[in-house]
């Protein structure tokens, strides 16, 4: 077994999860400010945006925009929790005791969170299309949407997480048996 805290894989895993969590937190925080601001101070915000824009903006699709930002907020929050759970699992691995029931619950929760964020990409893309339509009518804007709406890697990841959750549940039970064996 690797020495705890002296393992490059675990260390990089911890660093990456911390960085990603920080990125999600910053994004979610910005959206947590932007969405209520758009809802409650729509006129003031629009006025500011129009004044700062070098070109006429036309009719900005506010409802799709707020919806888009709202869904992005939920996705970022879900991913924040996701990476937190991943780091908690990594911590149990460094502590040398990963086969505990709580890790099975964490993996299961991670699978649900990822599934939710996967499913949310569909309304996200739909709203983005509405906004893209508006943006295309403006001069000097070349906005294109790229990527697949159906992300096979994400769906596979959800499946793998659900299966891993079961593996860990089984492993935890075996571990418990082993601990009571003399």
């Amino acid at each position, binding site marked *: 077994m690797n020495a705890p805290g002296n393992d490059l894989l675990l260390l990089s895993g911890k660093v990456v999860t911390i960085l990603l969590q920080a990125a999600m937190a910053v994004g979610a925080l910005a959206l947590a400010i932007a969405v209520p601001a758009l809802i409650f101070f729509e006129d003031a915000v629009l006025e500011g945006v129009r004044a700062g824009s070098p070109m006429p903006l036309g009719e900005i699709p506010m409802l799709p925009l707020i919806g888009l930002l709202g869904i992005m907020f939920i996705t970022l929050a879900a991913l924040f929790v996701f990476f937190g759970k991943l780091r908690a699992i990594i911590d149990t691995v460094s502590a040398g005791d990963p086969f505990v029931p709580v890790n099975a619950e964490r993996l299961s929760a991670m699978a649900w969170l990822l599934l939710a964020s996967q499913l949310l990409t569909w309304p996200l893309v739909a709203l983005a299309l509405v906004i893209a339509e508006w943006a295309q009518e403006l001069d000097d804007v070349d906005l294109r949407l790229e990527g697949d709406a159906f992300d096979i890697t994400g769906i596979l990841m959800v499946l793998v997480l659900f299966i891993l959750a079961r593996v860990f549940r089984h492993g935890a039970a075996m571990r*418990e*048996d082993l*601990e*009571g*064996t*003399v």
Partner: protein
Amino acid sequence: MPPSMDDIEGARIMVKLDDLLYARRMTLTELAERVGLTLANLSILKTGKAKAIRFSTLEAICRELECQPGDLLGYRADAAEG
């Protein structure tokens, strides 16, 4: 509600290590050294908290205490709760 006797797997199996040790005038520490188990693990067995016992452990205890597995383990059919 505390789990009843039927809910706990293996709860009707008694470990009679205490009696055997007393009859042989041997301490738990001494037996632990002889069978090559930690005192902590042997205590788990003695207090009936063990979930399973390896054949190698059983063999070593029988060897050192000069007894049969049946002398070490018993089954309580009519175990009362508590």
